[in-house]
């Protein structure tokens, strides 16, 4: 699972739909991929990001980012390359995603988060 997906994903339970963003990420194993830098894609994804949550996750993985993102940063090539690396190249191979309000944990295995619900949890 990439950090971009983490920044968009919410708890799958109907009872806490959308109130508990983001899911707490505990990463046990991380791999770094090497995809080609794509400026347009990165700029477009920035519009979708919740910067606060992204900043916190990047911080927990040991990458420091500016507190706030200004519109001029879109033309900052070095920052864009770093963001592209963080968004698309860092893959969490194993770990857990935990909902902060209901405490439901979703395991990540081989880079695939398991969002399946039990019968009793189904909507």
């Amino acid at each position, binding site marked *: *699972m*990439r950090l*971009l*997906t983490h*920044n*968009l*994903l*919410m*708890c*799958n339970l*109907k009872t806490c*739909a*959308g109130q508990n*963003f983001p899911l707490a990420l505990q990463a046990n194993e991380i791999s770094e991929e090497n*995809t080609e830098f*794509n400026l*347009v*894609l990165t*700029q*477009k*994804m920035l519009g*979708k990001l*919740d910067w606060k949550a992204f900043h916190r996750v990047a911080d927990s993985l040991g990458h420091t980012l500016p507190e706030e993102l200004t519109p001029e940063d879109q033309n900052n090539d070095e920052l864009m390359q770093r963001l592209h690396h963080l968004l*698309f190249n860092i893959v969490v191979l194993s770990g857990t995603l935990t909902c902060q309000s209901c405490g439901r944990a979703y395991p990540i295995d*081989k*880079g*695939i*988060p*398991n*969002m*399946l*619900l039990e*019968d009793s949890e*189904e*909507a």
Partner: protein
Amino acid sequence: MSRPENVAPAQYYYNSEEAEKYTSNSRIIEVQAHMSQRAIELLQLPSSGCLVLDLGCGSGLSGSELSDSGHFWIGMDISPSMLLVALDREAEGDLMLADIGNGFHFAPGCFDGCISISAIQWLCNAEKASHNPYKRFSNLFNSLYKALARGARAVFQFYPAHPQQIEIITQSAVKAGFMADMVIDFPESTKAKKYYLILHTGSKSGYMNPMPLNDEDEVKVSKRKIVKKEKHVKCKNKSKEWIINKKERQRKQGKEIRPDTKYTGRKRHDRF
């Protein structure tokens, strides 16, 4: 043709053996790739840099078509074996193990499009006693409506078992707030026929503010027109007209048919 939906639930049907076919069987790969290309064409995405959701992504075949055009995709599937195949094929998007019939929750309006190849017909079957296909469709379309950006489209390719299924699916989508269109490719052929359901979340462009009325403007009311239906005339069996009609029908089904000539449907001479 047997329908896999009637054999077992998707997560069991697509076991490692069935999933293997999606790497080794060139016929399956070709058909899937072709449908994906068509669906992406119908999606009408801007040139590059979009975030697309792939429902029932399976081995990530449709995703690789998306990656080729410079988009990023997040895929969901219920079959772990198919997702492992996707990992083997080094799918460029992100994968997720989830049941689309339960709905999903993403940041509102984050996706620029959604694609789904041969997946939603699985939801028509109730695999457990607690499953209600109507409920599961509404879960799916409600969460999709939330996750899609305004002006975005979703394209679903699926194989309906009977016309009622199309109706159920379209109705649930419309209830969730979508505008729905159906495209049927090769409608006359039984084999090559493909159904594509296109959903819009409402258009961003093309909307014009209505102009206020002036004194000179009159509100136009047109008279109701009665359109007479053309009566279907049956032509005589084995007549020239009948033969030409039949040949035309078969041509539309993609069969190889001799061209119509002056000899077509002509009576033989008496002395023969």
